[in-house]
């Protein structure tokens, strides 16, 4: 169509795009302000290190092995916690969403326990699963469980009754109903739950690693703190944030999910 051709034809150069210009201006202003603050000596030595120092710390970090070994540990812990918390969450969500009575009996507890600070359970997790990776995985799984369970339950209740009736009229078994009707119909809700769950699992694992641990990205951050290596800490935080945002973006693309603040 003519209209489409008009809007699609000349790809706008990035510098002609006002949004891109504003973004570049904001980033540039922030970097200049940062550098000025670093050079001014107003803040205590190295609390705001110069951009050059951060860049070289970032380069050192990315070019040495310890980052990748610890990243591997953290990714492994997050992955296992997602599997445990996710599977448990989906199972509980299916039961509570599928049965009105059980939903009314137990869902309020999930609803209200969901937004409590999970990290305070860490002492219990250490006693149950030890100071190694187990307690970190448990923290991640515990954090991940609640959003996944709640989203699954909500998603289950939102399935169109006609889909369920189609399944029933084909005399589908329970397993077939779950695989062919419930899970496909609930995909968006479950992916939202999984994305929220992944966000809190990342936080749970990383925070747990900053306490009583000798491996993982969280441990690296707290090690930089102990050694007062501020440029190193900034470099690490940049890596952690970029990875977390990347994971979230990938999952959102995959599920076509909406805003990040859906709780």
């Amino acid at each position, binding site marked *: 169509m003519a209209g489409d051709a008009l809007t699609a034809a000349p790809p706008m150069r990035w510098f002609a795009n*006002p*949004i*891109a210009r*504003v*973004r570049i201006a*904001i980033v540039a202003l922030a970097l200049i302000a940062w550098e000025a603050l670093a050079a001014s000596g107003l*803040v205590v030595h190295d*609390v705001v290190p110069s951009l050059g120092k951060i860049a070289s710390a970032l380069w050192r970090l990315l070019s040495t092995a310890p980052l990748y070994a610890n990243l591997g540990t953290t990714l492994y812990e997050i992955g296992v916690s997602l599997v445990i918390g996710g599977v448990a969450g989906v199972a509980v969500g299916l039961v509570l969403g599928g049965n009105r*009575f*059980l*939903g*009314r*009996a*137990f869902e*309020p*507890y999930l609803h*209200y*326990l969901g*937004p*409590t*600070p999970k*990290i*305070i*359970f*860490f*002492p*219990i997790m250490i*006693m*149950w699963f030890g100071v190694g990776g187990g307690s970190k995985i448990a923290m991640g799984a515990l954090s991940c469980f609640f959003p996944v369970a709640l989203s699954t339950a909500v998603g289950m209740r939102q399935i169109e009754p006609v889909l369920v009736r189609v399944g029933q009229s084909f005399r589908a078994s329970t397993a077939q109903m779950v695989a062919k009707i419930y899970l496909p119909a609930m995909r968006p809700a479950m992916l939202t739950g999984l*994305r929220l769950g992944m*966000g809190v699992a*990342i*936080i749970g694992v*990383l*925070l747990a690693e*900053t*306490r009583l641990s000798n491996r993982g990205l*969280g441990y690296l*951050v*707290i090690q*930089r*703190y102990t050694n*007062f290596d*501020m440029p190193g*800490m*900034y470099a690490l*935080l940049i890596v*952690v*944030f970029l990875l*977390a*945002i990347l994971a*979230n*973006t990938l999952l959102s693309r995959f599920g076509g999910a909406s*805003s*990040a*603040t859906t*709780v």
Partner: protein
Amino acid sequence: MTERESALSRVAPVAVGLVTIVVIFAIVEALIRIGWINRFIVPLPSAVLAAFGRVIAEENVLWRTAFTGAEALAAGILVAIFGGAIGVLLTRRRVLRLATETWVAALAAAPIVMIYPLLLVTFGRNAVTIVMIGFVAGLPPVILKTVEGLSGTRRVLIDVGRSFKLSATQEFWKIRFPAALPTIFVGLRLGIMFALINIVGVEFLINFGGLGQLVNDLAERYDLPATYAAIFFVVLVSVAFFLVTERVERWLATR
């Protein structure tokens, strides 16, 4: 359905939920007493219940709750002021909104709390660090919901304002802001909730302040029943907070 039946159908699930929890605690108690669960890892539920009184009487729980509450309040006020102001700015300047809204959303999903060692260096091991963590954690939802609320005002309301020839300021205070208030409150509630979660978490991690430190303290003393009791207490406080703000939100939405 008769009135009695409908009351029964409301009460029965709640009763079943409560009874199940009591039964689970009873089973755990029994398993510990017969030695199937190690009592040095999981304390007796009855001992935890008994420790509640001790924790409340000896550990300054009320003072600690007030301290954490004050930190959350301070963070909440900061979040409301800055989140609201940034939200208004982004609504007024469309290009700014288009440029930064995805950044704010990305920030909302990022593990912001991981900057706590950074704040520890900047502000020291004190309440300022904790309030600042609450502030940065609570900021994104308030900004996003303020923008959503202010830019979603129904056209007819704005037209009414136009027909009364309201100035831009009047239009904002008389029309846009009141219409956006329920949505803004949703953001504020999320923001303060995130702030509270992070505040208690960081209190625990840096061993300073109110309820979070209490848990850490008791765990380090290896006082198991009291640790469990303190964790239950923190959970109760956050649930109470959640319940109250949920009620306020519903009240605002139906007004």
